[in-house]
Structure formats: structure tokens, C-alpha cells
């Protein structure tokens, strides 16, 4: 068994949400310039603000978990 310290689960949660948040947010920016989406409520551009929320949540998990791992 490894003796190295394991990353906490919050590191993985943060990593996943951050990466997906970036992709969704980037799609939101794309839709500002190419608003061809035919979905209902497309004018609200949900990708933009939902991606931003995911990104913020991801960083809130990721940064403390990463710093905690480095200190340990």
C-alpha cells in the first residue's frame, strides 16, 4: 500500500466541476456571438451563468483541497 498522502475527495469534486464549468462557460461565451441555439429560453444564455456558477463552486472545492494536500 502507498505511503504517500491521498488527495481528499473534495480535490476530485473540485477538479471535475472546474473543468466542466470552464467548458460550459466557454460555450456560453460562444453563444453570445453565435446565438443560433434553438432551445427554449435560449435568450437567457443558461450556459454562461450556469457555467460560471459551476466554475466558482469547483474552485471553492479545488483550491482549499489542493493547498491542504500541499501542507500535509
Amino acid at each position, binding site marked *: 500500500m*502507498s505511503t504517500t498522502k491521498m488527495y481528499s475527495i473534495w480535490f476530485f469534486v473540485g477538479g471535475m466541476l472546474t473543468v466542466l464549468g470552464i467548458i460550459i462557460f466557454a460555450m456560453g461565451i460562444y453563444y453570445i456571438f453565435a446565438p443560433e441555439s434553438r*432551445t*427554449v429560453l435560449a435568450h437567457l444564455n443558461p450556459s454562461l451563468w450556469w457555467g460560471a456558477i459551476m466554475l466558482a463552486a469547483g474552485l471553492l472545492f479545488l483550491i482549499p483541497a489542493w493547498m491542504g494536500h500541499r501542507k500535509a
Partner: protein
Amino acid sequence: MSVIQLSWVDWSIIALYFVFIIGIGFYLKRFTGTGEDYFLAGRKNSSWVAGLAFLSANLGALEILGWTGGTMKYGMFVSHFYWVGAIPAMLFLGLYMMPFYYSSKIHSVPGYLKLRFDERSRLLNAFSFAIMTLLMSGINLYLMALVLRTILGWDWHLSMWISALAVGCYIMLGGLMSAIFTEIVQFFLIWFGLFLVAILGTVEMGGMHQVLSGLPDAMSKLWATTGSASSNAMGVTWAGIILGLGWVLSFGYWTTDFLVVQRAFSSKDLRSARMTPIIASFFKMALPFIIVVAGLVAYKLTTNPLAHFELLKHPVTGEPWNDTALPLLIARYYPQGLVGLGITALLAGFMAGQAGNVSAFNTVWTYDIYRVLINKKASDAHLVWMGRITTLVGILLSIGTAYLAMQFNTIMDYIQAIFSWVNAPLFATMLLGMFWKRTSATGAFWGLILGMVTSFTIFLGFKLGFLPPALVHMITFSQAPIHEISDMSRNLSQAAWAWSVCAIATVLLSLVTKPKPESELVGLVKGFTKVEHEGHMAWYSQPKYIAIIAVVVFAALNIYFW
């Protein structure tokens, strides 16, 4: 022709998810050297980690899809399955039952039965649980493939094999630790992937009051229409909801089903284990804000011809298929990118449920069947090896069951009823075992058998129609014409009878047979189990105070939506 067309961005998100969860399995493999690591995640999880995994293991996508669709039929009544049908039992598990489970340092629920009673009860429960878990796992797999094929046009075989093998891969590598890590990632994906549907649906309707307005009373009330079974779409009265769902089915599932309870066993100490279901209860209470809201939005859209929202037809029955409501809402509101997130959330739900089944199965097989009947002297390393092999075998058997379900669609009717056969009587056994020192091993074993037989007989009686009408009325506590008695009402009464027969038989037999000596009940029965004094802790660290907050929220929700 599929309903949702995926772009390369959506495919990238789905691929990223698969790479990520399998990567977690490879990363965790190096930390799972012992049986304690592999089967109980090292018993070092905090209450938050165990609590989210506890809920996530229960949160299969079929439940999400099924109850969103169920809301279109039953309305707000579906919330009963999340509130009265879950919260009291989860709090009871945390406050009163967990000390006996956790203090005995067992690996599984059947393990408790062995310590409290004897090997017979352990093996009976281990086999019935293993069979139930595998069948449920296979059915979930089949239904997942059915949904993916209908909505996305994906190939049956490919979607079943890829998702099952991905789950098998990360559980084989990291055991329960992998399952818990991925379940928590999946928990967040489900919330971020699906809550937006409810938000956008509410926005389209013009606000929450518009979602609720104009609904028939039978759909918009929680308790006000439970005075008579004919006043609500579910066809049950308040007594049926409280006794059948809130007591027998709910307590039977949440307090004894190893699939969920295993997550609490992975906690680092007793306080964390007790907090596990209590923390999970808050998230359970929040789920109707995704599921019921989305279902009500779908209902309103289908009843408005101008909305151009139509459910797909079921590929087998040809009837409008309520389970397609949520994917159709995803297609309605989500542009490229978000569609990938929504589909990933559904896949995450499927796989979290699958992982829960497989990790529970490998533990019960390894500790309660293999080590008891086949290799009594197995070393710890050998048990870990066996756990890995069992995971693979479990996955393959699940796939086999899925193909069986594909051939014989009616098998699902039987399998849905298994919960009543296994969990309802087991709850009576556990309750008596933990809180009545006189309960004997013989009483418990035969009580369990009689409870299971009762449940099975009633089920077959309903299914094959051999019960006389007078007996059906007595069993269901209903005077309604037999064809008007709903499946839900039958399930609830079946569980209630199984529980009652098991409890009465266990008590009577225990009174005439020899109980275990008190010296063997330490750590297993109330009055013989030391619970750590928590008075020196801050209030927010004490399970009882957090449980009181949960009760207040639970009561407020029920009163608000009365």
C-alpha cells in the same frame, strides 16, 4: 431517430467523465491494500463524505427518471417518497440503530445477524440480499440501455457493456473507496446537471406559484387529499402512507439495506457514522425540488398544446412513457454543452446506483458467503483478491440479468416486489434484535422466513388472482372494487403484512425458545451497548441537535405543501 443530438462538445464532456472516474479507480488502487481499505474504505471517512455517498448510492438515475415521470401521474404525492418515506427512517438509523451496527465493527448487515443471532439468519439474509442486489443491478442496467436507446439512439449492447464495465473497472481497482469517491463526484454532477432543468422550467412557467397553480387537488396537495383513497391518484389513504410507506417500506429499506448502510460503516468513528444518515436527510429532502418540480413542469407542458411537448411512446407497451419526461426537458432547455452535462448527470446516476449494488454485493459475497461456507481460513489479502473477482463476476451477472429482462419484460414486475420480500421482514428482525434482549436466534430465523413467505404469497396472490375478494379487502384495508386497488396500495399492504407476520412470529417463538446469554449481547443490543457521551461537544457536532433541525425542516415542508 433520436430525440437529443449530441455535438462534439457534449461527447467530450461524456468522455471526460468516463476518463475521470476510471482515473479515480487507478489512483485509489494504491491505497487499498487491506480488506478494511477495500470493503470499508479504511473506516476513515468524515460524516459529510459518508453522508453524500449514503444518499448517492440510493440516487440511481432510474429513480430520478422514474419519479419525475411519476410526478406526472401522482403530482406532489411523489414527495412522500422523499419526505415521510425516508426522513424519519434515516434519522432513526442515525440516532438509535447506528450505535449497534458500528460498535460491533461488522463488515455487513448479515454480519450483524451472525453476531446477534446465528449463522442461519446471516446466510438467509446474505443470499437473499445478494440475489436481490444482482437482479436490481441488472434491471437498472436494462432500463438504462432502454432510455439511452430511445432518447439518444445509442446501441443497446454498447451502452450496457461500456457503463457496466466502467463501474466494474473502478470498483475492482479501489473497492468501496472508489465507489464512495465516484458517488460523491456523481452527486455533484447530478445536482449541477439536473437542477437547472427545474430552474428553467420554473422560469418558463412564470414562477413557482404558476407551476403549482391550476393543478387538480389530487396532484397539488400532500396530505389534504389522503382522507379517502379515491381522492388522490395514488389510491392510498394517510394510514397507508404512514404505516405502509413511512413505517415498513421506508424503515425496512433505509435501516437494513446494506447498499446504503455500508456507506455509514466506512465512517471514521461512531459520531460520524451516526451523522451520516442525518446529513444525508437534508439532501434527500431537497431532491423534490429537482424531481417533483421538473415533473410538474412536464405535466403542465403536456397539457398545453401550444407548448409542443409530447412524451415518447414506450417501445414495449406503446403507451406514453413518463420516464422520458426529464430527458425531453433536457432537450427542450439545454443547448450544446449543457446537453452533455445533463446526459452525464443521468449516466452518473445510473452508475452511482450500479456501483452501490456491486460494492455491496462483493462485500456480502466475500465476508458472509465465501468466508463462511467456502474458505473459512482465507487471509486478508485473499479476501481482497476475492472481492475484486466478485466485482467482475457481479458485473457479468448483472449484464446477464439485463439480457434476461430484455427477453422477458414481465420479470421486472417481480423484481420490483423483491424489496418487500427481503427488507420489510428484515426490519422487524433488526428492530426486535436491537431493542429486545429476549429475541432468540430461532425466533429471528423462523420469523424472517415466515415474513418472507407471507410477502411472496401475497404478491403471487395479487399477481395470479387466486385470493378471494374478501381476503384482498382485508389485506389491503380497502373496500374499493378490486380493480380499483392500485399497485402502490398493494405493495404497501404486502410490506406491512410481511413485517407484521415476521414481528409476531419472532416474538412468539422467542418466548418459547432460549435467548442468547446477556454476556454475548454486549455492543449489539440496547442496554448492553455503551454510547459515547457527547455533552462536551459543540451542539452542531451532536447528532441529536442536527436531527432536531432535520425534523423541523421536514415538518415545515409537510405543513407548507399540506
